[in-house]
């Protein structure tokens, strides 16, 4: 053991003499671990939230009975089933508006609630009396309490002025959900003796067949391991994971570069240790132990950094998930022990993977061959051909996935293979470009410039690969976001065509407001609207009612339609489908669907497809009058107004004053658009932040590679200094060389990035969200990103160059002394 410790001490002494190398190694590992674990923390937080949602009284993790047409059914069925031995418990579900915001209201029956319904027993059976007896209790998550803006124990009122039970906080609950006793829920929702579903508990008792009690009115829904929310948000998390993985690999590039150089510099030391009697087995074991110790240290620091990254990104991620999928994720980070252990493990595994080549060389190290400090660079050149062949294979794989693949995962596989291929082919492309430069060079210094750049290439290639990937991802994602942004703004103009939007507290108030508005000269039109929930092919969809008005005809964002589409809509037997629904169910214009409605199935022909960005659900748009006819219960509280622009502020002020409406209940078009844009920008702020992190890590990779190379390059530079090139001129040449290879790499990253953008828009987005955006190129943005990449390269190159310019002549003379 003491021998191993002594050997370890000697190995560690290398880092003491080369602190910058150690810093490089640790920075690489810390960056890799931090970004990876940060992203994993966000994913874990979101998944915990989905679990909470799923566990809330009959999420998809519980078996249940629902009506065939997904509407409510008589409470008597519950009584009949209980008597027949079915361990069922009733749930009523609906929505309630409080302060202009909509909340999910769940009514439960705590006595019969199955014990295995996750958090249910804790919630339902604590203080049963106060929960059930009037005025009862309304259980909410802490986040919901904060959202409501009132204290625990107080009683909120709904928008239709119903006094709700006192609030009680239950941390297990998902935000946005209100839980009350079933009797209270039936009163609030005005659905006496009706229930939404029956949860089924586990029981081995004999029970009569379902059909013999409920006929064909109910169907059994088996529990599902993955929730709808998880399925919906998979793409978002896959996207985050892909970014985390990319950053992780960029970090490992740094580690690989640092370890490779350290290994070459330590070769003489390793041989001396062997000559002094340290066995190969001990030397290798100690090297692995050294690496694991460093990875452990870096992993811990990386985890702390990852925590802060996740904490800073979480509000934006939560906003994205809420905006894109309606998923409620708490804004406060809470992590499980597995996250910490996984972070440490990934750091150690990453370090071992990055050091694998060096460790393999060390294991095969012959004691007698003299040290060759540049041998690794020469060896890298032999890999050039192999790398290029591997790159072509990766491109072929990308093509294969693009051609044959038909899933989100295959979309990401295309991206991964494309980027891997591009990274692998980069050294060969640079080698050819530099060789061409060398061939065309005239003056001696120019010839040396190109030749030395080629020699330096192998040492820089990993960092340049990192730069290529980071910049390509930046270009790709920025192009996608910009394309999305511009399309979104045009779409928003179409969707938000009314000048003022009103959301009345109830139908009575809505009628009152409309009557008042009809007498106002500045109001040019009142455009009613409404929506109902329905199921199509087992999928929840929205049915949107559109008034037959010129504003909608002129502005509705139709992607494709029959020429008489709007006229057909007015007839009540046709609909428009949103893009995501048409893709998911492969519906085209002319297809017919049967929409389940309370009065029976509603046959509709699809006469148009419209863009509906940001909506996770499928949606059909029908004529408003037809909607109210088939869904009579649809609230008619929402409507838009056409108003002369200059009269908007005064009208809103008067509406608020006269009818007691707040900012959420009445808003003008400008405010609505600004809010939508704010949500949109927030949705992509996480992507932008990860983009910036990745580019930053690539910059660090370049800096560390240049710093570690700086010392080994002195033997090449000292002879030039000796024959008359000043240190300043050498420094300028070095800077120029770095910038030249960075420029070539960045220029290659632009077309690659555009390819990534196309892939994201045409493959990944379509699979993830169900809509396809037009591909556009934004030259100014590309120039901007090129500038940022070159600025990062310049910053990375400056420090080693300044050190060279200021280097004492004695340091350069020592090169000759050492080579004696």
């Amino acid at each position, binding site marked *: 053991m*003491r021998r191993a410790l002594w050997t370890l001490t000697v190995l560690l002494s290398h880092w003491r003499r080369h602190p910058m190398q150690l810093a490089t190694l640790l920075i690489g590992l810390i960056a890799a671990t931090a970004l990876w674990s940060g992203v994993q923390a966000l994913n874990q937080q979101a998944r915990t939230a989905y679990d909470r949602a799923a566990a809330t009284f009959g999420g998809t993790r519980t078996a249940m009975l629902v009506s065939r047409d997904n509407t409510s059914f008589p409470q008597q069925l519950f009584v009949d089933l209980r008597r027949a031995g079915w361990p069922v418990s009733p749930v009523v579900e609906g929505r309630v508006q409080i302060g202009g915001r909509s909340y999910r209201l769940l009514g439960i029956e705590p006595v019969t609630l199955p014990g295995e319904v996750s958090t249910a027993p804790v919630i339902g059976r604590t203080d049963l009396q106060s929960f059930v007896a009037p005025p009862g209790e309304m259980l909410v998550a802490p986040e919901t309490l904060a959202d409501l803006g009132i204290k625990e124990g107080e009683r909120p009122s709904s928008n239709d002025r119903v006094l709700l039970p006192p609030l009680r906080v239950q941390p297990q609950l998902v935000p946005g959900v209100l839980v009350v006793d079933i009797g209270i829920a039936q009163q609030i929702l005005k659905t006496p003796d009706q229930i939404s579903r029956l949860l089924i508990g586990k029981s081995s008792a004999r029970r009569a067949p379902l059909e013999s009690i409920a006929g064909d009115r109910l169907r059994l829904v088996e529990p599902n391991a993955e929730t709808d929310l998880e399925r919906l948000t998979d793409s978002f998390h896959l996207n985050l994971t892909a970014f985390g993985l990319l950053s992780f690999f960029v970090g490992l590039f740094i580690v690989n570069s640092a370890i490779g150089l350290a290994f070459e510099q330590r070769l003489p030391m390793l041989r001396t240790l*062997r*000559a*002094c*009697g340290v066995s190969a*087995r001990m030397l290798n074991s100690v090297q692995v132990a050294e690496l694991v110790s460093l990875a452990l240290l870096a992993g811990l620091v990386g985890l702390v950094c990852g925590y802060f990254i996740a904490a800073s990104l979480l509000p934006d991620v939560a906003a994205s998930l809420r905006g894109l999928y309606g998923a409620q994720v708490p804004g406060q980070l809470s992590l499980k022990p597995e996250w910490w252990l996984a972070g440490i493990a990934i750091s150690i595994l990453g370090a071992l993977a990055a050091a694998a080549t060096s460790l393999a060389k060390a294991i095969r190290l012959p004691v007698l061959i003299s040290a060759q400090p540049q041998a690794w660079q020469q060896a890298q050149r032999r890999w050039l051909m192999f790398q290029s062949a591997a790159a072509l294979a990766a491109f072929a794989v990308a093509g294969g996935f693009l051609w044959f693949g038909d899933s989100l995962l295959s979309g990401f596989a295309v991206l991964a293979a494309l980027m891997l291929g591009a990274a692998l082919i980069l050294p060969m492309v640079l080698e050819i470009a530099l060789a061409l430069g060398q061939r065309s060079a005239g003056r001696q210094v120019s010839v040396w410039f190109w030749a030395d750049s080629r020699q330096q290439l192998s040492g820089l290639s990993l960092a340049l690969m990192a730069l290529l990937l980071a910049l390509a991802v930046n270009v790709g994602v920025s192009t996608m976001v910009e394309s999305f942004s511009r399309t979104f703004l045009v779409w928003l103009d179409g969707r938000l065509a009314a000048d003022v939007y009103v959301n009345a507290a109830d139908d009575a108030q809505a009628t009152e407001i409309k009557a008042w508005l009809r007498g106002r000269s500045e109001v040019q039109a009142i455009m009613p609207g409404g929506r109902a929930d329905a199921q199509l092919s087992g999928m929840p969809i929205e049915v949107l009612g559109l008034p037959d008005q010129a504003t909608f005809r002129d502005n509705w964002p139709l992607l494709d339609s029959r020429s008489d589409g709007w006229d057909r809509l007015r007839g009540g037997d046709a609909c428009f489908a949103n893009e995501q629904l048409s893709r998911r169910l492969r519906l085209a214009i002319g297809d017919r669907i049967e929409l389940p409605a309370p009065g029976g199935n509603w046959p509709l022909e699809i006469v148009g497809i419209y863009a509906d960005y940001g909506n996770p659900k499928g949606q059909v748009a029908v004529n408003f009058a037809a909607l109210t006819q088939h869904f009579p219960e649809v609230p008619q509280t929402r409507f838009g107004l056409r108003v002369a622009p200059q009269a908007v502020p005064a009208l809103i002020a008067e509406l608020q004053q006269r009818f007691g409406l707040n900012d959420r209940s009445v808003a003008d078009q400008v405010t609505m658009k600004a809010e939508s844009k704010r949500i949109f920008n927030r949705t992509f702020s996480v992507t932008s932040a990860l983009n910036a992190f990745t580019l930053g890590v690539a910059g660090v990779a370049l800096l560390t590679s240049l710093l570690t190379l700086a010392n080994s390059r002195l033997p090449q530079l000292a002879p030039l200094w000796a024959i008359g090139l000043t240190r300043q001129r050498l420094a300028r040449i070095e800077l120029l060389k770095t910038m030249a290879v960075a420029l070539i790499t960045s220029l290659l990253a632009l077309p690659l990035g555009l390819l990534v953008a196309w892939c994201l828009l045409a493959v990944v987005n379509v699979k993830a969200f169900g809509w396809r955006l037009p591909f556009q190129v934004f030259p100014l943005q590309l120039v901007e990103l090129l500038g940022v990449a070159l600025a990062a390269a310049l910053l990375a190159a400056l420090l080693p160059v300044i050190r060279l310019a200021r280097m004492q002549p004695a340091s350069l003379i020592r090169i000759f002394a050492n080579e004696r």
Partner: protein
Amino acid sequence: MGFLTRQPWILTCRPCRGIDSGMASGNRPVLTVTGLKKSYRSAGEDIAVLRGVNLAVAAGESVALTGESGSGKSTLLHLIAGLDAADVGEIILDGVSLSELGDAGRAALRRDRLGLVFQQFNLIPSLTVADNLTFQSRIARRHDPKWQEELVERLGLARLLKRYPEQLSGGQQQRVAIGRALAPKPLLLLADEPTGNLDEDTADEVLALARDLVARTGCGFLLVTHSARLAATLDRQINLHAGVIA
């Protein structure tokens, strides 16, 4: 005894065969080389470097091994040190046959019984002079502070202990290398052209120190050198010519 039984090469110990190799009579042999052959394959053909070398070195004896470039001097030294394996022949070091040892056994033998000095010094650049000096004796668990102190004094390294190898002259580095090799009190000191990088005066000084310390420890000393003048200062001279002892 516990220490001895932990050494794998002890288990393979066998009686040495006495051979006539010009060894100084009276002292026990620490090294016996018999019929050693070694060839390398280069450019498609076998090149025989050693063609049957016989050699012995006794405890306390210093032997100079001379010969022209490419005669196989360094190869012979590497084989004796267990850094490479012979094709044919036997090397017995302190009664142990090297051919029967694996990598771990040969490493243990180098660590505990041999001192190696190279032309290129081969100090560990990231360790100070003090740490370089004690490194081998510590991993051999034969660190003797008094002996260490004496070595430092005799080698004139007292003022250089905190320096790093790159801050030393060639002569100073070689003195550290000799100190490191002798610190564990080896049975045999092997030196491969230790003065090859030094000027004549420094070379004389370094070799004198080495001879002095070898005499002080009573170990065997096998020096590979080009210099007939330096070889003449040792007890015995052997010339290697075309792969055999001339």
